[in-house]
């Protein structure tokens, strides 16, 4: 091949690089390793993580069972190693599955349109805010303190330099948004009001009520979810204008925080303001149904500085995992799964001292009366249980509280152990 291009050695391929640019040393990276060594390396590191613990952490990342078919399907090279389906004629597999994904997200959320995926739930929040700003031509954003704290941080990071002031509003004694405070802050400059349901405390918000309050002021209601399984039994946020959320619960392993799949769905009329990729139905030259990427004029590769977002690569393979998950569980299964989560969480909650009394799905905040959450957690670690998330870090006022989550994977005996750890009479 070198002959063909008239060169002697591969080094000649970089001979024209300016000498003061060429890197002549060796990279300080160890020599290549064999497959076996690589596997051993990661296994030895994995051994230094939590292994064999029962976990009751939720807070945006949930421990649900992953049906075997999910990896069977996403491991097929035709899905795993294909690029973005720009060439529709040889990408109908990916395009069709995304169209099914978009449809199921609409069915779950009660929205009319959904895109092909966002990076994750957190980055979808600012995208929704900016979308609302474009739609309403207003600039302010109100966000509930009961929205996932890290999601709010991301919102602040995104909006700070776009002249989009962000204000937070608090929660009432029962742990759901303080509607009075919201109404006070809801002036004509507000483009979007962002709430989460189930909220960060696991509590359900009153979407209907919120929506009427918000729409009365001409703002858009953005509803966030982090626990997709809740949609199997909890009333969908039909009245929202935009719904964003995280699908990690749908067969995506926690994997120390990612990759996950964010979604953004909205009412039909906002479709041209959606960020990211959209798959649409059309026909091929033979007149048969076919699918392709559509409304690209919203996107950076066409619209450049005027695009609705700068997103390009998304989370397609994770969205496919969620699609397979939804297909495996289906209509009945997702409901039964949600009911099991509900029952497990309420069983555990029934033995503890709840901080808030609004209805909750599979997460809830408990008082650690007297002792610190850390004390209780370290006692649980001794019993191979990872307890709940101490809330002080995000909510100084909740110093004595932790957020616990139970899913279909939680075993009764572990929950009983937790109850014991909390109870004054300590058997350990």
């Amino acid at each position, binding site marked *: 091949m*070198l002959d063909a291009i008239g060169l002697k050695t*591969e080094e000649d391929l*970089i001979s024209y*690089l*300016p000498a003061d640019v*060429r890197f002549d040393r060796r990279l300080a*990276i160890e020599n*290549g390793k064999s*497959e076996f060594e*690589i596997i051993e390396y*990661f296994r030895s*590191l994995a051994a230094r*993580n939590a292994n064999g613990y029962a*976990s009751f952490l939720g807070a945006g990342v949930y421990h649900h069972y992953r049906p075997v*078919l999910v*990896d069977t*399907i996403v491991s097929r090279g035709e*899905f*795993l190693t294909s690029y*973005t389906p720009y060439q529709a*004629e*040889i990408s109908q597999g990916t395009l*069709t*599955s995304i169209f*099914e994904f*978009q449809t*199921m997200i609409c069915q779950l959320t009660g929205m009319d349109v959904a895109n092909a995926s966002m*990076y994750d739930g957190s980055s979808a929040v600012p995208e929704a805010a900016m979308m609302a700003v474009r739609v309403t031509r207003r600039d302010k954003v109100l966000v509930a303190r009961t929205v*996932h704290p890290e999601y709010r*941080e991301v919102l602040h*990071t995104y909006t700070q330099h*776009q*002249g989009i002031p962000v204000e937070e509003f608090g929660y009432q004694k029962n742990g759901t948004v303080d509607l009075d405070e919201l109404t006070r802050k809801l002036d004509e400059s507000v483009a979007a009001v962002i709430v989460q349901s189930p909220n960060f405390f696991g509590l359900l918000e009153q979407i209907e009520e919120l929506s009427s309050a918000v729409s009365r002021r001409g703002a858009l209601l953005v509803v966030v979810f982090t626990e997709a399984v809740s949609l199997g*039994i909890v*009333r969908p946020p039909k009245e929202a204008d935009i719904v964003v959320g995280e699908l990690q619960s749908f067969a995506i392993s926690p994997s*120390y*925080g*990612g*990759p996950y799949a964010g979604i953004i769905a909205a009412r039909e009329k906002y*479709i041209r303001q959606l960020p990211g990729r959209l798959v649409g*139905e059309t026909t*091929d030259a*033979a007149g048969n149904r*076919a*699918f392709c990427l*559509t409304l690209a004029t919203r996107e*950076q*590769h066409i*619209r450049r*500085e005027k695009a609705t977002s700068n997103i*390009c*690569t998304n989370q*397609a*393979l994770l969205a496919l995992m969620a699609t397979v998950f*939804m*297909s*495996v569980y289906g209509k*009945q299964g997702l409901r039964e799964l949600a009911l099991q989560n*509900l*029952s497990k969480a309420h069983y555990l909650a029934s033995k503890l001292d709840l901080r808030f009394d609004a209805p909750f799905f599979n997460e809830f905040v408990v008082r650690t009366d007297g002792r610190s959450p850390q004390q209780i957690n370290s006692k649980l670690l001794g019993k191979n249980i990872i307890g709940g998330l101490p809330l002080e870090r995000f909510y100084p006022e909740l110093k004595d509280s932790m957020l616990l989550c139970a899913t279909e994977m939680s075993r009764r005996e572990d929950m009983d152990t937790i109850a014991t750890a909390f109870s004054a009479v300590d058997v350990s």
Partner: protein
Amino acid sequence: MIKKVSRHIVQNEPLLFELSSPGKAGYQLPPLDVPDFNPEEVLGRSYVRDEIEDFPEVSEFETLRHFSRLSTWNYAIDLGLYPLGSCTMKYNPRVNELVARTEGIAWAHPYQPEELSQGCMEIVAALERALAEITGMDAVTLQPAAGAHGEFTGILMIRALLESRGNARKRILVPDSAHGTNPATATAVGYTVENLRSNDRGMVDLDVLERAVTDDVAALMITNPNTVGVFEENIRAICGILHDKGALVYMDGANMNALVGVARPGEFGIDVMHLNLHKTFSTPHGGGGPGAGAVAVAKVLTPFLPSPRLARADNRWTWNYDLPQSIGRVRAFYGNYGVLVRALAYIMAHGGNGLRLATLDALLNANYLRTLLEPYYELAYKAPSMHECVFSDDRQAKKGVRTGDIAKRLIDYGFHPYTVSFPLIVRGALMIEPTETEPKRELDLFADAMISIAKEVEENPELVLKAPHSTRTPRVDEVTAARKPIVRWKPESKASLAAD
């Protein structure tokens, strides 16, 4: 003559919703080991949803068959050359998939105690180290989820730095050859974009640049090698011009596959850059994602890196959130972690030397194709090519055949097309990046196909204009799709009933 593919049968398949029949299901849950709580009681009627209308109801087997059938309609790198310029479609080693699924890693919760996450954190540290070494920069953040996300992070840091110096400035310069995410990013960070005309060699024009760089310019976003696959030979001078005016240089590292081991941006003046781990470092594209957009920065920018940062304290890793100047978070948790694991495995498999050899092979393959195709297609720029080569359809356009048509015809020959009509500065661009993992045999077949198509354009343009002729789905009408968008299935939808 078409050597690479034959026609065969693949299974048709309706949508999941059309396959559904009431009551079917593919799941089974373990028996509930706690009392059954009634949702209406514990949530209240108004909070309980009705059944999810039209949601799929299929057996486990139907799910597997459905997606197996759909998959056969896809092209993939596993099946053949995928020469998308600027996308670096290389082999995705399967051991990386395996290690990313190691139980203690795949099931690690981002909030589990740090003392029970040391393995995960060590992986982050190891990858940050390796990428800093590869780029020659001072620090790396792995939080961004993709390249565009990395650009956003990088430009935010530039803005934060300039603000800390008292003036965030107004404008960001972007060469007209840049990828769309560059200008889109600049806007997202509140800057106005000024496009720079490239010179006749496809590079940044120093005079144009001089003139453009004023005191209100925050930065230049440059891609190097640029999107025509050419190394910006004046890169040092370019950086100098901006630095002299107190502006910074952002490098889009999407084309880093051309530089790993042969040149380090940190050594030629770059202040901040992103890497697409799903390109240079071989993590699978998965039909559009996930990616990871690691961002490497020079010392001046380190205080502004996203929060949290990994830190070492009395012999163990910990997450440091106490970063007064940080731009904050760009994403929840610590990034697309599973992608990072794969990228590290890739780097370990190659080692320092192997990475450099991979780069040279990538250049070799690209230049080999350039040489074979130059007689038949108009080379956009004569400057030496690195990892990709860009042609224009000028010659074929005379016959009314455009780059998009040639691309579709390539499909009949058994190849995924190159990148079409990008970069925009090339009229009817054909942007070809083979990557280092392609065997010569596949490259020769590709060249044959391209040459044969060039002849077809002369002799029978219609054949090319109507392509593809061999796919299950002939040319798709994208115009109608956009005119009246149908983005979800609905039971009444005619199209759907006409399924089969």
